[in-house]
Each structure stands twice: as C-alpha cells, then as structure tokens.
C-alpha cells in the first residue's frame, strides 16, 4: 500500500513509519504544521519538524510539511476559546483528531492517491470479523499508553483508511525498536499537555489574550456567597483548587468542588464531594465507530483520557445511567463508550 505517515517528530510516529517500511509498504512522511504561535510542549515546533525530517532521512523516505495552520485555528483553537468563554472545558486534542488528522489530512492523502494514513497512536484497528468488511477500534495493547479515547470519532470510513502500527506494542518496546534502528527520537520525552498552550503562561495567559477573563462570585447550593474566583472562564466543573475556603486550614470535610459554572452571571456554584456525584451523564454530538448500540445496552464509560471506565446503560438517545455514582463530567469533555476493549463511539458532555 501507499501510506502517508503523520510524523510529529516523536518516537511513536517514527517507529510507526519504520514498521510500515518493514512490512513492505511504500511510505511517505508528512508533518502537519498546525499551531503558528509560540509553543513549548507542542507537536509543530521547528525542532519537532526537524526531528521528523531527520527520521525520514534515516528511514530513506521522503518527508513533507503540510501547512494546516489556518484550519487548526478555525477548527481547534477558535472553538476551544469559544467553549471556555461559554464556561465549558473542551478537549482540543479530540477536535484536532476529528478535524485535522482524520479529516483534512486523510482527505488530502486520498486526493494524492494514498491508500491509508498512519499515525503513532496507541490503539488498534482490526477487521470486525475475519471475513467481514467492517472495522473495529480497540484499546492499545499498553494500558498505560492507550489513546483510544481521543480516537473515538473514527467512523467506518476513517477506520478503513487509517493504520496504527504501534497500537499492538507496549511503549517500552516502541522505544527499544527506535533504539535498535538508531532513530534520533528514541529517547525523546513524550509530549504533554495542549500543544498551543505554553507551560510558562498556561491556559490563563492563552485565554486572557483572546477573551476577557472576568472575576466571578462563588456561591453555595443555597446561593450564599462564599468567595470569589479571579476568572470564571477558567473554572472547570469538578475542580477543587482555587475556589477559596472559609477560615483556618482546609479539612477534608469542608473541601468544596465546582458544581456548575454560569459565565453569563459570573457565578460558580460549589458543593461537597457528595454534591458532585451523579448517577447520570448526558452527552451530545454522539458519533459511532460502527453499529450504534441498542437502547438499554450495557456499556463502559470513560470521561477523561486516562480515566477508569465505569459501567453504565445507554438509553439510545443522550443519557448514560451509571452503575455507580461518578463525579460530574465537565461540560465540553469527551465521553467515550466502550464494550470491554472495543470503542463504540462517544460524544460531548453537556
């Protein structure tokens, strides 16, 4: 097959490219230039593009840069800022996968005549049955590195055109393979955090430069004021730190959690851990990897990139009845449904 490998300049996509070459595919490397502003953790700094280009040279494949920075601003950064302005906490990596890696890049690759796009994600794509024409997305073999959560938006069309060559390997083995091949990225640290937000300024500096951050009132369940926050747009449902406390050193008993953020009223409602717990999770914008589960189907629910899955029953529309109380999921976060290690699909918490 002719395969276009998205090379971020990290070890995972470097090894993904090497494995595809080993398997006999005709491989071309591409690095997406996404974020045009300053970055320290990110996937598109000049140093990372250089690393990707040098690995491609080592592997003897051609390497190109695809400038998708306008689309990244439009489809990832702007919605991220707008969501925070509305008091939600979005996951921009999910938006990037949905709009850039597995849409814009995939379409570009198809247009150029490539049979597939490969990435260095830790998840597995398999045929749904040995003789079937369907595809399933499963958790990666390395439980500590599993990235199936951020890939839940892949539908059958995408799954049929995407390869995840390192998904069946433990991370340690990926690094070992990189070392054996002499790849310069073998010991490169994993990328962390959101690529367009710098460690020094953080979310506050990034959002503060784009939207007004306004002080907010903190109230308890009865509406009594109990404190203030410097920026209501930065508060995430479920957050405990930075909400102030009454007097004296905080004890476990008076720990307070954000239960709701009303940006229009500049108000954060707080409550106890018990108040934070819920037995239902509501989602919107749900997409499915394959067939949609029937109403009443038992599923497992994961509501953060590396959170523990919790059993639930899917009502077939928008509601998950949890088998045990869970903490409120911050609006804007992705909620992903699994059947054991198989990804069923997912949506956005409301």
């Amino acid at each position, binding site marked *: 097959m002719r395969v276009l490998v998205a090379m971020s300049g990290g070890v995972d996509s470097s090894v993904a490219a090497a494995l595809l070459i080993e398997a006999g595919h005709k491989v071309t490397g591409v690095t997406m230039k996404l974020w045009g502003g300053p970055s320290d953790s990110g996937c598109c700094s000049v140093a990372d593009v250089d690393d990707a280009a040098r690995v491609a040279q080592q*592997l003897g494949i051609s390497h190109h840069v695809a400038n998708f920075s306008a689309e990244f601003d439009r489809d990832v950064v702007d919605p991220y800022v707008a969501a925070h302005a509305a008091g939600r906490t979005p996951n921009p990596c999910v938006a990037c996968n949905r709009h850039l890696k597995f849409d814009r890049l995939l379409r570009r690759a198809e247009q150029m005549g490539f049979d597939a796009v490969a990435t260095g994600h830790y998840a597995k794509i398999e045929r749904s049955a040995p003789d079937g024409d369907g595809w399933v997305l499963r958790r990666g073999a390395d439980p500590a590195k599993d990235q199936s959560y951020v890939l839940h938006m892949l539908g059958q069309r995408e799954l049929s055109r995407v390869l995840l060559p390192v998904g069946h390997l433990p991370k340690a083995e990926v690094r070992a393979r990189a070392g054996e091949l002499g790849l310069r990225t073998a010991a490169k640290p994993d990328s962390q955090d959101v690529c367009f937000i710098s460690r020094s300024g953080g979310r506050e500096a990034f959002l503060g430069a784009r939207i007004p951050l306004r002080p907010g009132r903190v109230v308890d369940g009865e509406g009594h004021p109990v404190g203030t926050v410097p920026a209501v747009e930065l508060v995430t449902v479920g957050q405990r730190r930075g909400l102030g406390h009454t007097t004296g050193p905080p004890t476990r008993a008076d720990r307070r959690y954000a239960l709701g953020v009303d940006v229009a009223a500049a108000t954060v409602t707080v409550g106890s851990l018990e108040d934070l717990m819920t037995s239902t999770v509501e989602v919107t914008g749900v997409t499915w990897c394959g067939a949609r589960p029937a109403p009443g189907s038992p599923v497992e629910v994961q509501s953060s990139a590396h959170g523990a899955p919790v059993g639930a029953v899917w009502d077939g529309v928008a509601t998950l009845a949890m088998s045990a109380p869970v903490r409120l999921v911050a609006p804007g976060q992705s909620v992903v449904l699994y059947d054991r290690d198989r990804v069923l699909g997912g949506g956005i918490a409301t």
Partner: protein
Amino acid sequence: MSASGAQALAPRDAPARVVYLDHAATTPVRPEARDAMLPWLTGRFGNPSGSHPVARAARTAVDDARDTVAGLLGVAPAGIVFTSGGTEADNLAVGGALRARPGAVVTTGAEHHAVLHAAKGFATDVRTVGLDGDGMVDMERLAAVLDDDVRVVSVMLVNNEIGTVQPLDRVAALVRRRAPHAVLHTDAVQAAAWLDLRTAAADADLISISAHKFGGPQGVGALAVRGGAEVAPIVFGGGQERERRSGTHNVAGIAGMAAALVAADASRVEETARVAAHRDRLADGLIAEISDARETGRRAAKVAGNCHLRFPGVESEALLVLLDEEGVCASAGSACASGALEPSHVLLAMGLVPADAASSIRFSLGWTTTAADIDAALRVVPPAVARLRAGR
C-alpha cells in the same frame, strides 16, 4: 547513534532520474567555478589580510575576482563588498545605508524577505508599495510614498518567484525627482544569471548578487556600491572590505563566484535563447494540457528561466508531493522555518487572494536544463494536477 540500522531497513532509492526545475532556488556549480575553487581547497590557502607571501597570493586571488565582478556589474573594483551571500548583501544595502544616513525606507511588497525584514529591522518608517496584476511595481503608488525623508529605495530587478523584470530606469528617474536624498538598491540576485547587469542595473546605487544563483558556490555573494553611496557596516570585526564587511574572506568562494559570473556572461545570449525556448515549450504545453492554468506575469516581461503557473483548485503543497514522487523538483511560495509553505507574499502583493496564491507553482530553468527535463515535466505534471482535481 547510528543510522546504519535504518539504512539496512530501507535502502534509499532516489528516483532514477531527477528532473531539476528549481534553478531559482539554487543552481548546480559550473565547471568553471569548480576549477577556480579547487586550488583553494586542495593546497593553496592564505588569509588575504596578512602580509607575507602566502597571504599575498590569497589577496591576489580575491582582488582579481573583485576586478572581474566589478567589471561585469559595471562598478569600480573599490565598490565591491564580498559577503556571505545574497541575504547579507541585501541586509548590508538596506541596513548599511540606513545606518549611514537614518530615515525612511521604501520597498515593494514583493521583495525578498532579506530586504523586507532588514527594512523592518533597521528602520521605523517603512513604506511598502504593491504590484499590479502583471507583477510590475505600481509606479503611481511609488511616486506617492517618495519624499525628502526617504534614504533608501529597494526594488528588486527580477522577482524570485514570478520572474518579472522591474523597470529600474523609470524607478530611478522617479527616485531622483521625488526622493533626492535616497539611494536606490536593487536585489539582482535572480537577475545575474539572465541580465547584463552593466546595463540592466546601471541606474542602481547598490546591487546585490549571490553566487549560487548563477552556477557559483553557495555561501558567497557581493554588494556593489556605486559612486558616493554610503554604507556603514552591519558586521563588525577586523575591518575587511574597506571596513564595510568584517570577516576573513571566503577565498575559494569568491574565486568561484567570479568564474561563474564570467561563464554566465560569456554564454548569456545563447543560453537565454536556449532556455527561453525550453521555458516556452513547458509553459505552453502545461497551459494547453491543464484547463484553467494561468501564467503569472506577462511572459515578455520575465526572465528566460521562470515559469510560474497557477492551477485553480489544486493545492500546490499536494502537487509538490506528487511531483516529488516522480523526481520532479519545483517549488511553491516560500517556506517558513518549519518548512511549511506560506501563501506567497509576492502573489498577495499582486492582489491575489490566499487560495489563488496557494495554487501556484514555480518551475525555474537554468544552465543545466535539457529538452528531456521539459519532456518529463510535461509527462508528469498534467496527470498529477488531474488526479488532485479529481479527488477534490
């Protein structure tokens, strides 16, 4: 760390034949330039600033090259300042002139970044003039921004992307009339391979050239300073080049540049006709084969080696990948530090919208271009464009 494992994994298989149509990026070194350089890489050596026989021999080589380059640019030998290339020559022209006499700078929006960024770096009053739809400087707008405060006007002789030749004589007449305190700089980096600078740049006070654009080595260039134009240094040190550019001379490179310029000049008339014929066959062939293909700039106003086309609906980024696979080397726009293509500021300065700018491609021909290169491009490009259009 070794790459041997990776090489064993995938032996590098370059395309059987590379079709090089990117001479505006860099050119192969001419044998004359190589022969002039080799002695200085294989036995002869010397620091031209010293005062012993070894130094004097190197000094002679640099001064002979200076005489040669000065003669072919039509300036006095004392006016030649050897630099590390075109970028430094442009920086020295704009920055050095402004450091000598501070004031406003006027450029076109289609200048090389070596001029645009130097202007921003060395002046606070930067006035930028656009181009018309044919890629020619907007003379009315130029007249409007010239005044007594202007100290430097920089208008490139040949545009690096679209190949248009600017009317330097008319620009110079306007500058003399409207901005009497200004020196006129021309970036002739893309011109030197095609135009006789003794005449084509006769109206400029400062002229930048770069050796690797006309068959010389990379890493060497020159700024020609005519008459009384003042240029203060922007690189400091031992005071070489009459205190205008410090640093030990690149003797081999300077000798190679002079030899390449002589060779380019000696073959200029025949080469221009030969390459223009290839270019016309390429441009006409692609326009005939590819519907809606548009040529940028009037061909009569372009140098022989430039073929700049736009294929509406085709992203040049994707087209370059397909051409790469077929061994065809071309380019599009200008790349930022990461290698990502940015919409061409030249095309935007002409008034094109970003989507049109992003569908453009530059084939640039040169002294090694053959009919077989054109055959290959005519064979490879139309189906690549068709494939991308079909996949939209």
